[in-house]
């Protein structure tokens, strides 16, 4: 038994040597932090270290669930993710279907190239643009409101505007990029379907409605389920740049809370517990979504 294992290792030794950096990387930076999650059940501090810190069981979780933060964070994270999914989902599809109808190849290419551009910008730059455009003193949006005789709005200080701002900038940034997958699906449609429809005298919007959209329905469906699995995985980096204490009541999500508690206030154990809880919900959502995709006849994630 042992000798066969050694024989295999000897046989593959060059390949295994090539794999060493990869093993070290995953052990240190992926499995290391997973092991580090034990601090969620301990009272960790920097000086005693992970091993010597006292076990506290579920104390951090209990404190979190009993405290006022839990429901607020749960609600904010879910609603921000859910609304982002619902409102931004149709845009890339409509865009791809419309773009597919353009017959002038050059124009089509220009529009598509333009549509990718925002996806290449960093979240800091996008947030900066959002802040500038919405500025009460010199933002174009407020200047437009003023010229139409409306009061100026302090958008970034207004909780009721936060989600709209977050979602609208998301649509702006990723619509073109996410359309790629639908454009590929459209490219795979059998052209004879359109030919037949044309012979039968179908109009262009009829073809869009009755050929293009139904043909990519399975792609749309699978994308929707996959994305709903990620509802709890908020793009918190943008939240971190756009929120402030006046909007915490709608903008504070699990990850931003973890960041503040853990890294700004050095409450490592408590923050790790909150992070672990969030990761578990996110995982359950993802597994459910994957299960549903498979039930629906899709490939699923794995």
């Amino acid at each position, binding site marked *: 038994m042992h000798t066969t294992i050694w024989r*295999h290792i000897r*046989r593959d030794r*060059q*390949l*295994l040597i*090539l*794999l060493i*950096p*990869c*093993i070290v990387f995953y052990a240190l*930076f*992926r499995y*290391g*932090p*997973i*092991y*580090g999650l034990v601090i969620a059940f301990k009272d960790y501090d920097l000086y005693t270290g*992970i091993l010597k810190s006292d076990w506290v069981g579920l104390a951090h979780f209990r404190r979190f669930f009993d405290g006022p933060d839990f429901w607020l964070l749960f609600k904010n994270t879910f609603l921000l993710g859910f609304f982002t999914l619902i409102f931004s989902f149709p845009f890339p599809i409509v*865009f791809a279907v*419309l773009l597919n*109808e*353009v*017959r002038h190849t050059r*124009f089509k290419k*220009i*529009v598509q190239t*333009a549509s990718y551009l*925002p996806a*290449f*910008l*960093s*979240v800091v*730059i996008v947030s*900066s*643009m959002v802040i*500038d*455009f919405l*500025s009460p003193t*010199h933002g*174009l949006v407020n*200047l437009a409101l003023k010229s139409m005789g409306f009061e100026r709005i*302090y958008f970034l*200080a207004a909780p009721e505007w936060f989600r709209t701002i977050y979602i609208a900038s998301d649509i*702006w940034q990723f619509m073109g990029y996410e359309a*790629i*997958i639908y454009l590929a699906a*459209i490219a795979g449609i059998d*052209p004879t379907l*359109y*030919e037949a429809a044309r012979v039968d005298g179908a109009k262009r919007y009829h073809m869009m409605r009755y050929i293009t959209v139904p043909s990519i329905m399975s792609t749309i469906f699978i994308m929707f389920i996959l994305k709903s699995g990620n509802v709890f995985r908020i793009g918190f980096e943008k939240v*971190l740049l756009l929120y*402030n204490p*006046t909007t915490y009541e709608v903008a504070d999500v699990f990850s931003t809370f973890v960041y503040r508690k853990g*890294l700004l206030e050095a409450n*490592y154990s408590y923050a*790790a517990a909150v*992070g672990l809880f969030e*990761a578990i919900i996110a995982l359950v959502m*993802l597994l459910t979504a994957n299960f549903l995709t498979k039930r629906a006849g899709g490939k699923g*994630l794995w």
Partner: protein
Amino acid sequence: MVNNGTRRRWTLFDFALTLILGLLSMVLIYPVFYVFIVSFSDTASVARNSVFLWPKGFNFEAYRQIFETARIPRAYLNTVIYTGVGTGINLLMTAVAAYPLSRPGLFGRKFFVLAIVLTMFINGGIIPTYLVVQKLHLIDTIWAIVLPNAIWTFELLIIKSFYEAMSDAIRESAVVEGASEYRILFSLIMPLSKPALASIGLFYFMGHWNSYFLPMIYLNDANLYPLQVALREMLFFDVARQTGLTERASLAPEIIKNATIVISMIPVLVIYPFAQKYFAKGVMLGSEKG
């Protein structure tokens, strides 16, 4: 494109379509354009809110000021270094690791692949990862930026399946000639994988160039800040001003901020029209991987 079998008349439908998509493109581009024109305008015009379509009082003052201070050029240099070293390490680690994993008979292959794929779904999160980086004394070094994400699992799987799809015949002839696995990888497999590596390299490049969160938490020394973190500081100044937390200062910082954004976008804007082909391919590679 799909349905242009014959030449047809320019209909109302085409007109409306062109109009809608044309306007849409402008909406998508305008914020980027606006950043440009503000950065070239003078303070008085920006203060009068008169800059919409073209720079007013065209000048390079903001750019001159940026390069007179040490802060932004240093941040720029830091970004270039982090991106260069980071992308290099990413590509090397990924291209090398994917090879043994792509060999069907490798000892323990199933175990390794499973352990790697699992990390896509289960991870320690922000805090435990931070503690590992801290424990390794990487805080305030370039390695804190580069090592904790040296391999992106998704890109590793893409390259692995790319290698798997390569014809075995290529490898066999080298084996017959007695070449070592190292030689096969570095002088045969990797050169043949240039298109796939370029595609994931682009994702890695963009990831480093645009990242702010990890540098922000792992670097305390302002001399080590990359551009995005320096930009973030300017942003916070803005937000504080607008939510009434501080008095409104002169407008110059805003012009300087936009000029900084412009110089930070330059490499991205230069690359992206060429790179979008690879980018699209990368997205498709990823989705086919499933």
